[in-house]
């Protein structure tokens, strides 16, 4: 007899939702977490996009530990001394069911794991899964742990995050590589509430908030940046390709310092006090870098399956973790009904992912990582866009005004870029965002 029908490793969003769903379906499930409490090891930007929670936890917005509701989303292009921001604001997002919310992961993940416990899951914290246990038929039949001995189950769901040692041990992740990873580093900076509202143009006294995604400003390392508002702190950080970072002379915290010193960001963070510095990897490789997600007696979900969507306009992983955790639970439920825990019995997981936003969006955006980390997207196009606006906005009387086309043509010529590349990038961008 196994100890549980299912062991879920990792109480991040993927694991907690897998455990919650299985418990609700009446199964015995253990949710294993190596941190002293769920969320204690987890770092993100971060904004939670909660639509996927609407069915799982009705009226989640009345209960989730939210900092601010996002009513302003911007995408900023930075050069050394210029910035160009597409800045969208909507008060429609200030009402239920909301679009996005900032939250601290130690709060949010703990809340979500508590929901799983309420549904009947058994949470075991402060315990690291150190490896897989195989049954005599060769299926995964449990995990080894450092505090509870072996925990046996019919199925193991690996929700153990970006480094997934379980997926690697099972041989499902042969292409795990630094080329598909970025390092996220972040500072949480304290400022008085009213000061944050004034600096970010948020209606004062509300818990509305802003989300700025940044292209450029990462000192030659392919990547990007972000700024998010919490109630009385700001999260500012950089996302850096590991290949670029290892070849660079600039350290991660220096990249953040560079962002904070940029003339268009400095006024937002000036004088704020550092509350916490943190770092975490992101699986940014997208569709083509994903591991196998189904093994004998084993499913892989969330970041462990490389399911974070990092596509410039979007940096979303929590919702994909939740979506995949739910699919995994449903697949396991079906396997339990059939009594078949082999790969063949669990394979419906893949179909379920394909049928939802999880793999649909990843398939559609599969060229994003390549496009966004290219020198053209990182440096060249932002430079041209900024210069174009600079010249359009500069009044050069008594010289006659030049039109945007004339300016654009001259800038393009001076850049040495090829039309052929731009057309290909345009086609890829259409595929991703069109």
């Amino acid at each position, binding site marked *: 007899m196994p100890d549980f029908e299912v062991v879920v490793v990792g109480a991040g969003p993927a694991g907690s939702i897998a455990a919650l769903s299985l418990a609700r379906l009446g199964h015995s499930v253990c949710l294993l977490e*190596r*941190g*002293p409490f769920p*969320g*204690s*090891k*987890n*770092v*993100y930007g971060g904004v939670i996009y909660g639509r996927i929670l609407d069915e799982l936890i009705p009226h989640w917005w009345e209960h989730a530990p939210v900092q601010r509701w996002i009513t302003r989303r911007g995408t900023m292009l930075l050069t050394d001394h210029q910035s160009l921001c597409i800045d969208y604001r909507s008060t429609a997002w200030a009402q239920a069911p909301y679009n996005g919310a900032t939250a*601290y*992961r*130690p709060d949010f993940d703990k809340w979500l794991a508590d929901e799983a416990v309420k549904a009947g899951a058994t949470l075991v*914290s*402060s*315990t*690291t899964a*150190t490896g897989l246990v195989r049954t005599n038929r060769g299926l995964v039949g449990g995990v080894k*742990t*450092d*505090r509870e001995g072996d925990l046996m189950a019919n199925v193991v769901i690996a929700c153990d995050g*970006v*480094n997934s*040692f379980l997926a690697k041990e099972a041989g499902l992740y042969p292409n795990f*590589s*630094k080329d598909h*990873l970025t*390092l996220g*580093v972040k500072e*949480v900076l304290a400022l008085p509430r009213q000061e944050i509202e004034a600096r970010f143009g948020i209606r004062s006294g509300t818990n509305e908030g802003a989300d700025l995604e940044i292209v450029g400003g990462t000192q030659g390392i392919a990547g990007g940046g972000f700024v998010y508002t*919490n109630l009385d*702190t700001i*999260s500012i950080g950089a996302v850096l390709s*590991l290949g670029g*970072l*290892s*070849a*660079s*002379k*600039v*350290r*991660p*915290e*220096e990249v953040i*310092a560079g962002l*904070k*010193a940029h003339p268009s960001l400095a006024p937002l963070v000036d*004088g*704020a*006090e*550092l*509350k*916490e*510095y*943190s*770092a*975490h*990897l992101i699986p940014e490789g997208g569709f083509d870098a994903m591991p196998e997600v189904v093994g004998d007696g084993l499913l892989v979900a969330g970041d462990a399956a490389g399911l974070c969507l990092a596509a410039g306009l979007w940096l979303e992983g929590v919702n994909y973790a939740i979506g995949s955790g739910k699919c995994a639970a449903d697949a396991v439920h079906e396997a339990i009904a059939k009594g078949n825990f082999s790969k063949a019995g669990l394979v419906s997981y893949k179909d379920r992912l394909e049928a939802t936003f999880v793999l649909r969006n990843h398939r559609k955006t599969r060229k994003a990582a390549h496009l966004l980390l290219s020198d053209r997207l990182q440096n060249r196009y932002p430079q041209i866009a900024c210069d174009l606006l600079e010249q359009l906005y500069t009044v050069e009387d008594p010289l006659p005004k030049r039109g945007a086309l004339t300016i654009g043509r001259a800038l393009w010529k001076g850049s040495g870029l090829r039309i052929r590349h731009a057309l290909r990038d345009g086609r890829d961008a259409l595929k991703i965002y069109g």
Partner: protein
Amino acid sequence: MTDISRRESVLAFDDRMATVDFRISHTAHITVDSEVCRSCTTRACLVACPAKLFVTTNDGGILFNYEQCFECGTCYAVCNNEGAITWNYPEGGHGVVFRHG
């Protein structure tokens, strides 16, 4: 630490790490074989480790201290020499504990 030094835009690195909580384990979860590092040409860990835990020694090796580690996995992903880094998670309940992650 004074308020003023905290407010400077570039903090001393120790002050930066002092903002992070750790429940330090007695045993090292990561070990580095300094002998293997001697032949390393990239030294990628030096620039990439966000906690700055790798330092070069006078004799061309690497000195590593596991205590203030984010457990992010960057070092083994960028490491240039097979076998230089042995990487595990710390025992359950130990290591970094984020408050604002």
